[in-house]
């Protein structure tokens, strides 16, 4: 084939870089800044930074559509703005590139199980708009070990991923409680999990939501239990750029509206009937009374759109990670404050 190249062949070979150069020019998008809500409305969709795959939070279904707890939060924000939960595009982001993507305006909002810490909140030019999932590090053990509390794990061998805050939290916890343990460390999360599954250690530790996901890939999930102790605080929430208060409010109040809707019993199924409710709180929430939606740059029926699109907080939780999903995570801390949890929606008034 090489021997047959004529003069034309040479010219053509050089010309193949032309479409590449053209694409480079065309690929450069228009600049956008400051008023994110106006920009989002103008382009007609929300660009949401999502995880590159985390069971229950962001994962593709059989048809390739993104589904999950965080994904539904993106859809809720899109529904609040456009009245249509499908007007959202997802940018899967790795842990390393997530903040850059938000800072540079590549995504409008980052809803990617990101832990709210002081340094992230204060020094990255970003703002956390709430906590949609209270996570924390927990332990999983075999049921036949006969342990019912993490405080009984003294002397146990524990599988842990190295180089993570998980490893540090583990050391802190055992030192604080004056217990001994044998860390069995691994470089990768799946190695850690399979080592535990094959019986190389007594307990496995990582974030509680991760423990439930791990249990799905075990040979006999019924033989394992997650201990009740949570030894670290991992509040996960949506993040926006600092300095755009209007956009910050839209995301923050979408979160509160989802919580308020659950508290007031407004569900995806009954949201239309609820509009005729006599309860003044429901009337205000659903925009029958007042102009709370307009005040943050949306329409007054914004909450109706959210709930119609994705349901309330409880429904999102149940569908993706709760007891009706394969993950079967209990509400725990994420129950409403009225049910013994700490999820507390600020009042709409």
């Amino acid at each position: 084939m090489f021997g047959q190249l004529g003069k034309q062949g040479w010219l053509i070979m050089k010309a193949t870089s032309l479409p590449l150069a053209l694409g480079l020019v065309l690929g450069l998008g228009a600049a956008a800044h400051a008023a994110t809500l106006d920009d989002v409305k103008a382009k007609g969709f929300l660009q949401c930074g999502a995880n590159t795959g985390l069971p229950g939070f962001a994962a593709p279904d059989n048809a390739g559509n993104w589904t999950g707890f965080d994904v539904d939060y993106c859809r809720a924000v899109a529904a609040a703005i456009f009245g249509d939960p499908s007007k959202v595009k997802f940018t899967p982001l790795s842990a390393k590139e997530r903040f850059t993507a938000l800072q540079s305006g590549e995504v409008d909002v980052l809803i990617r199980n990101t832990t709210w810490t002081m340094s992230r909140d204060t020094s990255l030019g970003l703002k956390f708009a709430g906590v949609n999932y209270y996570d924390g590090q927990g332990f999983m053990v075999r049921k036949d070990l006969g342990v019912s509390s993490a405080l009984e794990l003294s002397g146990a061998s524990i599988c842990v991923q190295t180089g993570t805050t998980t490893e540090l939290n583990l050391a802190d916890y055992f030192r604080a409680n004056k217990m001994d343990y044998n860390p069995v460390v691994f470089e990768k999360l799946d190695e850690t999990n399979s080592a535990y599954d094959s019986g190389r250690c007594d307990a496995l530790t990582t974030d509680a939501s991760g423990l439930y996901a791990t249990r799905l890939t075990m040979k006999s999930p019924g033989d394992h239990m997650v201990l009740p102790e949570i030894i670290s605080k991992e509040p996960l929430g949506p993040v926006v750029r600092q300095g755009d208060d209007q956009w910050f409010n839209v995301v923050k109040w979408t979160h509160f509206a989802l919580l308020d809707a659950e508290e007031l019993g407004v569900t995806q199924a009954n949201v239309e009937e609820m509009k005729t409710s006599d309860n003044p709180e429901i009337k205000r929430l659903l925009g029958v009374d007042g102009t709370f939606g307009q005040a943050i740059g949306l329409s007054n029926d914004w909450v109706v759109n959210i709930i119609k699109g994705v349901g309330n907080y409880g429904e999102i939780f149940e569908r993706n990670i709760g007891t009706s999903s394969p993950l079967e995570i209990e509400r725990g801390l994420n129950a409403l404050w009225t049910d013994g949890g700490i999820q507390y929606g600020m009042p709409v008034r």
Partner: protein
Amino acid sequence: MSDLQAQTDLYFVRRELAPPEPPPERTSGPVTWLRKNLFATPTDAVMTILALLFVAYALPGILEWALFKAVWDGADRTACLGDVGACWAFVKAKFPQFIYGRYPLEERWRVDIVFFLLAAGLIPMAIPAAPWKRFNLIFLMLVLPVVSFLLLTGGAFGLEEVETALWGGLLVTLVVSYIGIVVSLPLGILLALGRRSDLPAVRFFSIGFIELWRGVPLITVLFMASVMLPLFLPAGMNFNKLLRALIGVALFSSAYVAEVIRGGLQAIPKGQYEAARALGLGYWQMMRLIVLPQALKLVIPGIVNSFISLLKDTSLVYIIGLFDLLGIVRLNFSDANWATPETPATGLVFAALVFWIFCFGMSRYSQGLERRLNTGHKR
């Protein structure tokens, strides 16, 4: 009764062919084949027996996992729980996604056309007797990339625009590696010539380019493109992730191909250059007619080696949030509806099989090409 008849009766004359004797035991037959190929020396015999023992040890387990205890059908993870082998139901449910990524369902015919055109271009290329090789090459190197670009991205000729974020799976693997190959071969040739050029500016540019791209890992290039680049650009200005990966992979691979080709150029005796000059050929004529045809033929194994590793390196685009075949298989491990102990193994075996098919195909094509171009150099 004539004399003649009497004579033939007296002498024995064979009227039909004797049945052929079987060949000697030592030169043919299965036993001899075995003795020659598998048990020629005591070492061979030991190796053969060890290999057979290993096959006997491993094969039943592999077959049981991959075939006999495998789950072929099922709607979700419950089908693949319990004491089962490979969860092929997972691959079956996700197969369209593994091929097209999240390309919109109603637009997938466009991808099918591109796959068909690719096959239509490659198959006659691989058949020595097929005519129009030059047009075939022009089609593959120039027409196909442009047509595919228009078809896949859309936004013109009444086609709906499909953003590259939705592309995935085998489509991305093939697009990245194909563009990488099509760009890096000509660019690599130019760089190799440039590095041996007498013009200092050209030479130093080529050396600088090659050493720069060869000196950094592909992962670093991709990370720079996805993490650093957005910080340098004005806020809100993005350019396409796939394009970033394409440029990175193509330039990276060009540097490697350039060095492979330079090896071929160095193997051509000086006499060839001098003879070409003596015939009055100019630089480009000399290269095109005398030097490159010989040099490229010599380095076919090296070039194909580069292309095979390029095909496999496309998996690295996973780290910038693009999902090639391997990336999308791994992404689907996070679907809680399919999370089972067997899902990861099954998915990875499937991905490995697809990669192997493409790499093996490239390898066989290059071997065929070498045989065909082997004009009197056989050793």
